[in-house]
């Protein structure tokens, strides 16, 4: 299933902002649920073969999502998303940062600010994510922690598949 859905990805290095915009073939109610309910978030948030596992979730202003990115070897990277303001099925703002399993912020990695907005078009929903980093070096860390391993792991899996085909 490959559809042509809008994806915009722009980087504003000067202002340390990244803007991601993506269209989804679903109603705003569904898309909003997928971004705000832990059972659904866990199904797509982590890039394969990593999985997101929730420890605490309270989607409300002042609440947070405390979760681990769990790797194929059982390795864990903990992160927390603190919800600041929420307008149901329209937008939410949050602070995302790495932490330990108790939610205590990692002292050398400041987080990124998120402003996520949802807009319904005729049949689809457009999600707009504006990420603001304190330093762009944080972005490099974001990729390094968890995700980079995920990519490498995916390549290793591919190697294995190719090997078996010979």
């Amino acid at each position, binding site marked *: 299933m490959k*559809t042509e859905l809008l994806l915009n990805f722009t980087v504003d290095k000067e202002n340390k902002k990244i803007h991601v915009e993506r269209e*989804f073939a*679903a109603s705003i109610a569904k898309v909003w649920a997928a971004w705000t309910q832990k059972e659904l978030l866990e199904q797509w948030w982590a*890039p394969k073969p990593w999985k997101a596992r929730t420890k605490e979730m309270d989607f409300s202003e002042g609440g947070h999502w405390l979760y681990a990115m769990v790797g194929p070897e059982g390795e864990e990277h903990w992160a927390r998303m603190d919800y600041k303001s929420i307008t149901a099925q329209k937008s939410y703002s949050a602070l995302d940062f790495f932490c330990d399993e108790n939610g205590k912020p990692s002292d050398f990695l400041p987080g990124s600010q998120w402003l996520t907005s949802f807009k319904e078009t005729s049949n689809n929903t457009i999600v707009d994510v504006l990420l603001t980093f304190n330093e*762009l*070096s944080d972005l*490099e860390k974001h990729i390094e922690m968890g995700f980079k391993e995920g*990519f490498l792991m995916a390549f290793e899996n591919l190697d294995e598949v190719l090997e078996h085909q010979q």
Partner: protein
Amino acid sequence: MPKEFRRDVFQAIADPTRRAILGMIALQAMTPNALAEHFDTSRQAVSKHIKILTECQLIRQESSGREIYYHFNAKRMREVDQWLEQFKKLWEDRFNQLDQVLHNLKPNDYED
């Protein structure tokens, strides 16, 4: 904060003066004196920026006669963009997974 963090490429380009320096030497190689003339800040401050840029390999020094020239290292700059490419890829993968979740989502599976 680990010490090598200071030589991080992103940290290097996060500073406006350093971006300005990169912009100038990307156009043409320059001597330290010629560079310093373009800035209101002290020569010392400029050479500190140059040191950081050199440490993270965004610029390199070459001697020509008695003068030192700073050159722009385009290859290193492209590596920065590759990081961003990976970040973009991460989002694409994530969104493709979300497509599947949405595709399989039944009205009873979520709260309105």
